[in-house]
């Protein structure tokens, strides 16, 4: 058998660049190895693991109450949703029906967290495109939500406000007033976001038709959340598998069909409006009652497998528990939205320029601790 001689074409001036782990626009310690031909991106290879803490392994030696505090550290911007996933899974396994009050409060806080998360995304997206002013506008408004969180939950970023069976504490007396004030305030200021960035001609030129992802592709990559909905993939867990009080409120699932960076951008902007609608429907109708069900100090899930998903700010957050009937889970797996969304980065950016890579990365809105876990 003759040996086949493979003639490799000499690589045509392709240079590879390490983008990250320390880079302003990788939003954390993500490392992207880029192959460039001039300014054109030929290949993007994400290298994860720089902030891997082994959270899934750590949960195997922790009680369910303790696990909640770890889930905060996944996607820290949607900490409340991550908590809720654990709580819902435990409550479902133990057949506990939480009071209506808990459901409504969880929904309101979750939507506030979603708005706060999208505001921070807007800040960093603006900065990725080179408009530094967005950063301060977004943070200014996010501060109001964080103040509300601080009063009620005791902390600003990672609240750990949920616990199996209900909430850690009751609402602060000022909560309703402050949330209403915030809604009035933010309804007035959201158009400012559009003036500053959405309607800007440079921003449109930079994002329209860039990083197009079809619906089929989005489904096959498992893109969920606003990134998936920008491609027309109807994947809102709140709508399709309602939990908390989402079946009692009216809201639209924001869908766009273009699938480009601008679509993903507009989905998030519109989602902030929808979130405000949801809060407005609930804030005046918080039922009276207990803020938690009395639980045993040590929770033991019956033997079996449990899956619970929630809609985090970046997509579908799933939690899969295998229990052997002990106080610790036997195995635990998190389905983090950012990991699947990141997998699409290569397909999205191929053939675009570095500047587009940054814009597309911004529109995927990844949070690195959620990818690495």
């Amino acid at each position, binding site marked *: 058998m003759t040996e086949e001689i493979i003639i490799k074409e000499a690589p045509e001036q392709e240079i590879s*660049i390490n983008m990250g782990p320390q880079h*302003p*626009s990788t939003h954390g310690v993500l490392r992207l190895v880029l192959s460039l031909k001039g*300014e054109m991106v030929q290949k993007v290879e994400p290298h994860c693991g720089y902030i891997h803490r082994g959270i899934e392994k750590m949960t195997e030696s922790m009680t369910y109450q303790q696990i909640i505090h770890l889930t905060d550290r996944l996607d820290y911007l949607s900490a409340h949703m991550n908590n809720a996933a654990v709580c819902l899974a435990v409550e479902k396994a133990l057949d506990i029906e939480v009071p209506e009050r808990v459901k409504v409060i969880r929904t309101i806080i979750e939507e506030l967290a979603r708005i706060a998360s999208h505001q921070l995304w807007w800040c960093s997206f603006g900065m*990725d*495109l*080179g408009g530094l002013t967005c950063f301060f*506008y977004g943070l*200014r408004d996010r501060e109001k939500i964080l103040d509300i969180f601080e009063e009620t939950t005791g902390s600003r970023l990672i609240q750990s406000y949920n616990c199996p069976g209900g909430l850690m504490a009751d609402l602060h007396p000022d909560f309703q007033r402050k949330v209403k004030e915030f809604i009035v305030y933010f309804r007035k200021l959201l158009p400012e976001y559009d003036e500053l960035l959405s309607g800007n001609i440079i921003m449109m030129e930079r994002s329209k038709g860039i990083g197009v992802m079809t619906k089929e592709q989005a489904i096959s990559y498992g893109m969920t959340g606003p990134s998936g909905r920008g491609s027309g993939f109807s994947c809102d867990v709140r709508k399709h598998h309602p939990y908390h009080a989402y079946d009692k409120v009216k809201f639209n699932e924001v869908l766009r069909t273009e699938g480009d960076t601008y679509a993903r951008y507009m989905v998030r902007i519109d989602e902030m409006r929808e979130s405000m609608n949801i809060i407005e429907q609930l804030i005046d109708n918080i039922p009276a009652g207990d803020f938690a069900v009395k639980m045993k100090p040590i929770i033991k899930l019956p033997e079996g497998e449990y899956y619970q998903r929630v809609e985090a700010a970046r997509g579908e957050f799933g939690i899969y528990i295998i229990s052997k009937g002990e106080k610790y889970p036997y195995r635990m797996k998190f389905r983090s939205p950012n990991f699947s969304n990141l997998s699409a980065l290569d397909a999205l950016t191929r053939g675009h320029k570095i*500047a587009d890579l940054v814009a597309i990365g911004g529109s995927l809105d990844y949070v690195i601790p959620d990818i690495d876990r």
Partner: protein
Amino acid sequence: MPFTFSIYDFTGFTQWIDATLRGACSPFWAVLWEMVIVGVLFLAFYAVVGLYLVYAERKVCAFIQNRVGPNRVGPYGFFQTIADLIKLLMKEIISIREADKLLFNLAPFIVIVTSFLALAAIPFAKGLHPIDLNIGVFYVMAISSMGVVGILLAGWSSNSKYSLLGAMRSGAQIISYELSVGMALVTMCVLAGSLQLSVIVEQQRDLWFIFKGHFPAVTAFIIYMIAATAETNRGPFDLAEAESELAAGFHTEYSGIKFAFFFLAEYMNMFIVASLAATVFLGGWMPFHIPGLESFNHVMDFIPPVLWYIGKTAFIILLMMWFKWTFPRLRIDQLLNLEWKFLLPISLVNILIMAFIVLMGWYIGL
């Protein structure tokens, strides 16, 4: 020659210095002393303007971004940039093993020297005009286009891919936008009939060129503003140092005072293009006159020319800062499209229109 000093006309004062020096020593030494005096004054001026433009930018951007800005060092943070400069002076100058040492060290000096040289032809007030070249506009254009050499060298010699990408972008950008800057200035030179900056200023005694040349002059002004912003590598055209894409672009590998050189040169270039715009379009140090309103004109004349000059320059710098802090950044292909497909053809047509208007005498004359 008797000693005269007037805030409205520095000619007498400068001539008195010249006469005194020539009286005291031989002509050769007199000229040498004058050079030293002007050089020292300019160094001081350069440092002060550079530092306070940084301060102004930080205050302006703070104002745009709902912040307070520097407010700790001195009243209103007035000495913040001086503190920053001292910090930069004391920082370690990192030298890179694989870098081309000579070019790496030379690059910041090229950038800063070119911006320094361009200052020499700017008329600051009547009589305060270091060298009144008969090709002033051409000289400023030529010198300021030398700066790109420094940027390219900086990117090349750092032996870093980010720097190289930044330098490549910068080269493409500055060389293209220079054309539009040049064309816009040529349009105004057609109206003025001269390249000498003092003549251009003198012709605007009654009516600034932006009013005199009406439609083509305003077009040229807009093109000049866009192209000058791009030529000085400022946002939204700051692709050469796009921090969200290329870390810091061509000066990624520089630290300490060498970085400060690039930084200072960027601000001085902004000052120079703003000065040139003020001189060519807005009448330089000439006060604002409305023909026919004699009493109003007298009040305007009362404001010293230096203040007029500083005010106009500051206004244009403010415009450029406003651009930077409100717009997102363009992409490199969009940047080049804007230049080659829009600005350059428009400015070429604009020159024709201006030439026609001058030929027919259709400008607003008195």
